[in-house]
């Protein structure tokens, strides 16, 4: 199995497992998985959940080759329906988040380029924009399509730059209103005073790049905010506007010092680009992004040694996201007992994986979109710039668990709008039916609860399996 660790690892020279948080026990990440477990694990993490037939297909192709293919989505034939599907946001007109989210659900269920969809979700969430904030209702579709998607497996600096330039982000974090301090302060109270706005600068460092402990100060935030003055939007609230614009008049042209680097006076839009260069190259960013990826793909508390190797790849490749992912997917920690079933599915993952596992036909996505909201992950409507956490604790509450059980019952009973499931394709034997849905044997407790006499109606049985603790894990 571990031969492909070498194949993928660009920074595999570091002896792994030596760097440990004092007191933390990462020994489970040294324990290997069986071949079958490895395939299921990879499908659970690189896709929105296996469909019937996926395990056999990966087996036939070979796991390493399949992972490599997912890392190169452009080599995977896309389902023709995905390209002809009219986007709910085909032009710049306003679109409701719930309407727009239908497209996301459709792609998550049906795209052949599953890792790409997973990463678009990951990066959108990393560079979160709440679509319900004013003009963002109009700006978000282009943001995801043009800034996030094309860079999901590319260079981090490109992704960062695309988000920094995007009107959606400029609006969401208020940078479009941020102007050089000397532009205001006139004793004219008739105009609402606009001055320097630090929101984007703060989140850029805290959430997008360095991380909260990444080594910057409040002074750096102000300096970065000054660098980005003038990065604004041309008429954000009009259909004919809404594009990026640099306004030299409101740009702060004085000297700035960002993280110890002097940015000389007299600069223009380049000041912001320089900041992005500094941040993208910073070791804290390599570590912060690697850790976040490992938290999403490996476990809530991933081994520091793995993060260190990923960060090393990040720096050695100039922030090549594909290479960092290859390091992670090629690591023994990824294919370990410590990672296997270690993550609770997010609501989006639960909803989509249920549709995929059961081979349900999704004729319209409104019902599934609604369910993600009820389960606590309203798509495109995360207010805070933090995005949603991928940590298990975020998704396990009484309300959420109850909603998960009810979703399972509703889906199996064909009561989720637009989704059709054919129960007859599942075995009458509860253990066999569970294996069809979980792609592995159910736990003893789950089996014990579903093996009842008389056997429950088929739809109820499927509902119980989808609502079981087993299915909440990936």
């Amino acid at each position, binding site marked *: 199995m571990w031969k492909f660790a070498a194949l993928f690892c660009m920074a595999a020279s570091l002896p792994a497992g030596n760097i440990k948080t004092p007191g933390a026990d990462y020994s489970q990440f040294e324990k290997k998985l069986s071949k079958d477990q490895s395939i299921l694990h990879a499908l659970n993490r690189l896709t929105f959940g296996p469909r019937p037939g996926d395990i056999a297909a990966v087996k036939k192709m070979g796991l390493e080759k399949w992972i490599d293919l997912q890392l190169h989505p452009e080599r995977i034939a896309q389902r023709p329906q995905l390209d002809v599907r009219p986007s709910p946001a085909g032009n710049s007109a306003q679109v409701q988040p719930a309407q727009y989210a239908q497209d996301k659900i459709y792609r998550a269920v049906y795209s052949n380029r599953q890792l790409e969809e997973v990463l678009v979700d990951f990066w959108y969430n990393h560079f979160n924009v709440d679509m319900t904030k004013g003009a963002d209702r109009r700006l978000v579709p282009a943001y995801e399509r043009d800034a996030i998607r094309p860079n999901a497996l590319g260079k981090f600096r490109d992704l960062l730059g695309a988000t920094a330039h995007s009107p959606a982000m400029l609006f969401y974090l208020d940078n479009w209103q941020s102007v050089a301090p000397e532009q205001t302060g006139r004793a004219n109270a*008739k105009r609402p005073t606009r001055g320097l706005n630090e929101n984007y600068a703060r*989140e850029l460092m805290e959430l997008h790049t360095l991380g909260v402990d990444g080594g910057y100060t409040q002074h750096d935030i102000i300096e970065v905010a000054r660098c980005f003055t003038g990065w604004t939007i041309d008429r954000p609230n009009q259909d004919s506007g809404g594009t990026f614009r640099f306004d030299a008049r409101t740009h702060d042209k004085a000297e700035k010092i960002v993280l110890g680097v002097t940015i000389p006076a007299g600069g223009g839009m380049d000041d912001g680009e320089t900041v992005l260069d500094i941040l993208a190259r910073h070791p804290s960013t390599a570590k912060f992004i690697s850790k976040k990826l490992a938290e999403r793909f490996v476990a809530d508390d991933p081994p520091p040694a793995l993060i260190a190797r990923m960060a090393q790849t990040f720096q050695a490749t100039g922030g090549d996201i594909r290479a960092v992912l290859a390091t992670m997917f090629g690591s023994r920690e990824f294919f370990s007992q410590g990672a296997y079933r270690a993550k*609770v599915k997010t609501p989006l993952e639960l909803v989509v994986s249920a549709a995929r596992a059961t081979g349900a036909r999704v004729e319209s996505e409104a019902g599934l979109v609604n369910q993600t909201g009820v389960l*606590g992950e309203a798509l495109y409507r995360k207010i805070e710039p933090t995005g949603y956490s991928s940590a298990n604790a975020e998704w396990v509450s009484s309300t959420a668990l109850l909603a998960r059980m009810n979703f399972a019952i509703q889906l199996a009973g064909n009561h989720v709008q637009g989704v059709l499931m054919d129960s007859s394709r599942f075995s009458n034997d509860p253990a066999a039916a569970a294996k069809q849905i979980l792609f592995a044997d159910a736990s003893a407790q789950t089996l014990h609860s579903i093996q*009842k006499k008389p056997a*429950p109606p088929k739809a*109820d049985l499927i509902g119980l399996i989808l*609502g079981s*603790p087993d299915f909440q894990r990936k």
Partner: protein
Amino acid sequence: METNRRIFLKSSALAMVGIGSSPSWLSRTLYANDARSPRKKILVAIFQRGAMDGLNVVIPHGEAAYYDLRPNLAIPRPDGTPDSAIDLDGFFGLHPSLQALKPIYDAGHLAIVHAAGSPDPTRSHFDAQDYMESGTPGAKSTSDGWLNRALKQETRRSGVRAVAIGDEMPRALRGPNDAIALASVDSFQVRNAAGAAAFEKMYEGTHDKVLNGTGRETFEAVKLMQSIQKRPYSPANGARYPEGKLGQEMMQIARLIKADIGLEIAFTDVRGWDHHVNEVGAKPAVGQLANLLAQFGQALAAFHTDLGDRMANVTVVTMSEFGRTAKENGARGTDHGHANVMFAFGGGIKGGKVYGEWPGLEREQLYEERDLDVTTDFRDVLSELVVRHLGNPRIVDVFPGYDQPKFRGLVSA
């Protein structure tokens, strides 16, 4: 020993209950009538989303500038007719559609805080609601809400100590402490009786530590709800909740309170206050705002009547993200402004009074020459309720960075 006894009682109650029997007397024993734990104080928070026009809700009829700024919108000075303001103290008056609240004010249980709001200058609904719910104006990354943080750290807790009415958990109640969101009391259940029993077995037996713990809490909460669901609800004391979302939701909250299952905090919201156009109809006392206020006032009054003596332990507080322009716009409406008005009522509230320093409506008195200025930080009002009503002194945790709130004396000692 005391703890052991409780654990025993709790688990035997659940063991006896099963799905189908009613543990009401037991859950009451467990959560309410414990000799060492008097009935809990309860805080109900209502968020009026969209920015209510506070100047037309509690009208400064003693201020000439109000009538100058609002030729088409101003509610006439109190003259006893149904279209005029209901006088409170000779300077302020209630919108005539809030008649239902006047008796509570007169009884000394409704306090009003005018010119209250957030110090943050934003006029974005999005940001202002976010700040008011996180309790941290200006700080966008706060991940939890003030109401969640207002819950005291306790070892013995009910699974339904904090409830939001609605499908999704609101920002204000998100956070590390247990809280549940429910559309209604009746909807909080597994929608399949046989399924409920099987799920319960699975989650109570699973070796999955994360899901096991929460699974147990979930079924505990489900059973508490079932005990309530079995008793059809009829409001007491002749209370009549109005049609519409808020009335029904206030009734759900009353139902939860009366079930004595350990509720400490409830939250609900009411939308539709963003009246840029046609805030008033043919005359100032009618129209969109008037209709919404009638529903609002009746819902609150019905809740007050319904709870009766229990209001001694309950405080209701209302808030809206910011106020509206002092001057009316050209479309018989108002635009986004700054300060607003907050209500607080309950048995422990020193009501019958309009609190707060009045900043005035003359041009030079207005915030940015257009809006009512904030003279009471909304956190002053909420802090006082958290500390003196809920009895949680950890204000530094509830409103980080605002640890010196100025109490207005709303809560009787």
